[in-house]
């Protein structure tokens, strides 16, 4: 309690509050811009923290982290372009809600669930930081493999009427993730002699191509067919009522728990959390068929999960000094440049930093709600532009965002090529989400399976079932495949219109 008072004292100073507010605003802006994620926005602010008090610097970076994770959902809903990789899942139902004229509702749900999840994960962080760190440490390669396999089971339900198409799309994604230098042998794979392909494909250009560019092509095609442009909606942002928010509350809480736990696992991240959460929300829903067609729970679950990761990710950073993601690695860097060593001793040597961070995460999530409300109002105006201007502007924005990832024009080409691939996939009823899911989880799955094999000297069974935790995860994954496939055969879901 005394420690929390120290945190409150450190946070409720005018300069600290200002820094958190600015951080959230900066994060939201970064999240909204495709190609700039939370960690990039944090990295851009890192040099400015040099002259700051380390506690305030950490609070500002925490604000950027919260704002960045949320901001990605705004373009995902409004233009079908995820601003961050973690918002990819939000496109599926958020964009569909927007097309149906439920823009305000989708944006409200994303903001509300993000805020609730952020606050939830902060409470969890305060209460169980140390015990949760022990759970994170129990995750070895076999457990990570099981977790990624569990996430991949979503592919089975994304094939719609034809499950094989979902699997084909997923296999393409997993294969795409293997392009580039092999992480173990160091040899180039499927690079066809290209120096750029040797480095592998970046996630953001792949996702922006599959989701945004392909959607632009669809819009162009529909304009010829004389269909109305989806974004010509003259709706003003109004926060949907409490009743609407309560309807999605179970999904928000499910996402919050999943996000907090996955966020605490080093190297997994918000993208995996949002996909796993979406999968679970769909699995437990009574109305599975409406997922992918504009179900509010399909927005609440992934948004809650990726925002809950912010609190979860602080667990290994503060308690063990292990950065679990790029964003927390930047925070670690901010501490190191001030000659402060994170880890268990931080709580005794500099209590104002970890406890100040706990309180500031709370404040940041509240700021995020109000700044998010303002940002959605501003961003909604963009969608009232005429169709040709919007198509040209999004194309320019997406290509610039693609370039910004690695400052390499090859990524612009990747964005374009995956846009064409995504368009063809849409035409043939293949879900691009399966490809993205395969791409995100394929790498984690391969690396951890091979690592586990190395540890267990090639013994496959022992590699997979080396601990009760990995066994449980694999059993759930297998049961999930069987159950989803059975449900799909019994009552196939028509998602062709949605993908």
């Amino acid at each position, binding site marked *: 309690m005394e420690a929390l008072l120290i945190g409150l004292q450190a946070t409720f100073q005018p300069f600290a509050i200002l820094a958190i507010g600015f951080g959230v605003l900066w994060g939201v802006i970064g999240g909204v811009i495709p190609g700039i994620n939370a960690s990039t926005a944090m990295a851009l602010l890192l040099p400015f923290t040099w002259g700051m008090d380390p506690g305030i610097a950490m609070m500002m970076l925490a604000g950027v982290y919260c704002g960045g994770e949320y901001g990605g959902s705004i373009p995902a809903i409004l233009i079908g372009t995820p601003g961050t990789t973690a918002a990819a899942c939000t496109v599926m139902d958020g964009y569909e809600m927007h097309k149906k004229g439920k823009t305000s509702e989708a944006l409200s749900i994303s903001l509300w669930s993000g805020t609730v999840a952020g606050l939830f994960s902060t409470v969890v962080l305060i209460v169980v930081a140390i015990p949760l760190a022990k759970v994170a440490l129990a995750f070895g390669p076999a457990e990570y493999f099981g977790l990624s396999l569990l996430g991949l089971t979503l592919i089975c339900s994304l094939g719609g009427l034809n499950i094989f198409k979902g699997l084909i799309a997923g*296999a393409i994604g997993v294969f795409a993730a293997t392009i580039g230098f092999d992480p173990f042998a160091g*040899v180039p794979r499927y690079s066809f002699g290209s120096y750029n392909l040797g480095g592998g494909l970046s996630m953001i250009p792949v996702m922006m191509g599959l989701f945004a560019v392909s959607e632009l092509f669809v819009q162009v095609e529909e304009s010829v067919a004389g269909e109305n442009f989806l974004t010509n909606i003259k709706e003003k942002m109004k926060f949907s009522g409490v009743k609407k928010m309560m309807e999605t509350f179970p999904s928000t809480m499910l996402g919050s728990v999943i996000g907090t736990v996955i966020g605490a696992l080093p190297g997994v991240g918000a993208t995996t959390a949002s996909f796993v959460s979406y999968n679970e929300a769909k699995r437990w829903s009574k109305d599975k068929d409406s997922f992918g067609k504009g179900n509010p729970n399909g927005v609440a679950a992934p948004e809650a999960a990726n925002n809950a990761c912010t609190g979860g990710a602080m667990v290994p950073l503060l308690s063990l000094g292990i950065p679990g993601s790029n964003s927390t690695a930047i925070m670690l860097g901010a501490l190191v440049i001030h000659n402060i060593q994170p880890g268990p001793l931080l709580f005794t040597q500099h209590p104002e930093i970890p406890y100040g961070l706990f309180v500031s995460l709370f404040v940041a999530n509240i700021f995020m709600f109000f700044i998010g409300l303002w940002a959605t109002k501003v961003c909604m105006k963009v969608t009232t532009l005429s169709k040709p*201007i919007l198509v040209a502007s999004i194309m320019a924005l997406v290509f610039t965002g693609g370039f910004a990832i690695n400052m390499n024009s090859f990524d612009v080409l990747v964005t374009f090529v995956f846009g064409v691939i995504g368009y063809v996939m849409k035409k043939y009823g293949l879900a691009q989400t399966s490809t993205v899911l395969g791409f995100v989880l394929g790498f984690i799955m391969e690396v951890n399976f091979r690592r586990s094999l190395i540890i267990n000297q090639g013994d496959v069974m022992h590699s997979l079932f080396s601990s009760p935790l990995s066994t449980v995860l694999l059993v759930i994954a297998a049961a999930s495949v069987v159950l989803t496939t059975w449900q799909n055969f019994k009552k196939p879901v028509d998602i062709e219109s949605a993908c």
Partner: protein
Amino acid sequence: MFSYKDFAVGIASILLGVLIVFESRGLVAKTSLDPAGPAALPLMMAWSLIVLGAIEVVGGLYARGKTKADRPPSAGFKAVLGKWYERYRLVLIVMIIGAAFCALFDLLGYLIAVPLMFAAILWFMERRDLKSIIGINLAVTAFLFVVFKYALSVNLPLGPFSGLF
């Protein structure tokens, strides 16, 4: 479950699978240090693509046969091509504009390539008011340039304008 389009999906899937198998030949084999080897997962995916592709081909052929009686008689290759061209003409043009942008991005630089792409899209999408093309184009390009170049420190290629900004 299957539609006649699945035949094409199956063929494409098989071709991709075969390409992966073919390209995996040169990869180093598994070793005692790395029991799976670099080709394990890609090959697993390749064979999955081949098997799933074969299922799609068979399913697609089955669906074709089943819906043959319901399908209207073909209007002839020329008429189908004409209809196809009419529907996809603008998409193809936008794709060509996108491809040209990718090819010329480094050479022309951001400040020339983006306005050119922007103007071309507006022009072909029947927005031909020159005043608005120039005005909106300049506003969007300038906004994106300032945000990415100065606020986000992205080193955008400048082509002939290198050294000016």
